[in-house]
């Protein structure tokens, strides 16, 4: 071969060893974006849609890594920009380098991973976003995210949502409940648990459930995330679990992407998404919703299911099985550009952006003249509910809705 400079790569002047390691790891991923510069990600990016600021686009997040390789920028120059991402995955999927050739080359756009890696590098270099730092410190102290603000979250209360439901500890199948659902929107785990009980599906709870660690990993606090994962895996093993039932899409990402990275082939736990399990139970005739629900609804595809996992059929199957509903659906590809703004730590550091993104999502529902927006993600439901209140649109979780149609009195809190 005949490289212009005799085979050696042009010299770069990266400032320190750790940054060199970082750019060595991510340079090809980032050049794969930089060298195309398509920007097809731009109009699907939820942050871009509300800020219209090109500095906060997926393209910029990759270009900055190239500039770091070239010695033009340092992590201190770029860290604050990387707050502006919900890690919804729209950019990665919409990128031609994923959509048209990602499977062919086994090499796809990795914006979410790059954002996480930059955030982790920043934390490692002691560059903190103040609210994230505080959030993760409190999570570390309490083993759960401080989703109730100043109200104390303690380990003793993690199963309070299930107090009257007679769910055992341990067993082959364990229901994992994310922090938002366990403490804030407790109607969701109550609905899930009672649906599974109605189907005769045996499951238990963990001996000592901690936060999945995913949010810490998303915000760059990777050591903490890993410690939490190790705790949870040890707990599952200690109670004899072979499978984990997951009701929250964010947890589903943690358990099917982060945990396998931490533990490799040792990760021998089966991970089951509850919404898929329930769709199966309905298909098999184990569950039959019969109570008519007189609502006009549309469905919000949670980003971490639709965009990041390609899961969009099963929730629609469930909704179509519920009698009485008028369902005004929006296709999954159009919804690649929809988001609640509730992910990736954005609502902690920039709640005003989350609110704007949720308001945009609710406005799209309002265009359909619906009275209810159904989601399948507890983390989306708080910002969407707040935005929905202004437009008189009720935000309901799909499990809550199904439970109602199964004649279950759900209980718990929705706010």
């Amino acid at each position, binding site marked *: 071969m005949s490289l212009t400079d005799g085979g050696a790569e042009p010299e770069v002047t990266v400032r320190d060893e750790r940054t060199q390691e970082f750019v060595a790891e991510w340079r090809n991923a980032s050049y794969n974006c930089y060298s195309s510069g398509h920007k097809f990600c731009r109009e699907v990016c939820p942050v871009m849609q509300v800020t219209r600021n090109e500095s906060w686009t997926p393209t910029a997040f990759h270009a900055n890594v190239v500039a770091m390789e070239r010695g033009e920028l340092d992590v201190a120059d770029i860290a604050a920009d990387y707050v502006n991402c919900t890690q919804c995955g729209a950019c990665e999927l919409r990128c031609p380098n994923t959509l048209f050739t*990602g*499977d*062919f080359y086994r*090499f796809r756009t990795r914006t979410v991973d790059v954002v996480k890696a930059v955030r982790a590098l920043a934390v490692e270099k002691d560059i903190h976003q103040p609210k994230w730092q505080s959030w993760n410190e409190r999570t570390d102290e309490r083993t759960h995210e401080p989703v109730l603000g100043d109200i104390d979250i303690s380990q003793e209360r993690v199963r309070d949502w299930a107090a009257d439901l007679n769910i055992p500890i341990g067993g082959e199948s364990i229901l994992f409940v994310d922090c938002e659902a366990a403490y804030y929107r407790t109607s969701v785990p109550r609905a899930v648990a009672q649906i599974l009980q109605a189907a005769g599906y045996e499951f238990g709870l963990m001996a000592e459930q901690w936060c999945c660690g995913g949010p810490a990993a998303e915000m760059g606090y990777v050591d903490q995330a890993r410690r939490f994962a190790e705790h949870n895996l040890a707990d599952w093993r200690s109670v004899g679990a072979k499978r984990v039932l997951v009701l929250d899409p964010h947890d589903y990402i943690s358990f099917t992407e982060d945990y*396998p990275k931490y533990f490799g*082939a040792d990760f021998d736990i089966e991970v*089951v998404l509850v919404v898929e399990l329930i769709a*199966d139970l309905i298909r098999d005739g184990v569950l039959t919703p019969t109570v008519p629900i007189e609502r006009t609804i549309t469905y919000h595809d949670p980003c971490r299911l639709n965009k990041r996992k390609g899961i969009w059929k099963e929730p629609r199957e469930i909704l179509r099985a519920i009698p009485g509903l008028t369902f005004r659906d929006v296709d999954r*590809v*159009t919804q690649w550009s929809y988001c609640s703004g509730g992910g990736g730590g954005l609502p902690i550091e920039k709640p005003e952006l989350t609110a704007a993104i949720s308001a945009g999502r609710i406005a799209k529902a309002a265009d359909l003249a619906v009275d209810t927006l159904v989601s399948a993600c507890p983390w989306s439901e708080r910002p969407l509910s707040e935005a929905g209140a202004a437009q008189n649109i009720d935000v309901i979780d799909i499990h809550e809705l199904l439970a109602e149609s199964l004649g279950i009195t759900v209980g718990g809190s929705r706010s």
Partner: protein
Amino acid sequence: MSYRYDEQHTPPEPTRVTDVAITTFEDLYEVDPRLMQEWVTQQEFPNWDSLRIMNSRHDHLEWMHEHFAHKVIHGSELLPADPDPNPSGEVSL
């Protein structure tokens, strides 16, 4: 439906298609991995991700058709039975 590490990291046995491409899942082509050893190495790719991308591509292309026109006419329905003696001239249909 569910995720198991072993299953996800065991793709179907590849079949060679050309000197630069192989196939694993039905309709899913991949580069001959020998071409990605020097400058760009392949990423870890669980099965769900390959299938997600392929399925999303088909959904996206269908979406693009609908975006530009209400329906797609299939060329196969219009293929001529026999070669026309005067195709580019004034032929009646």
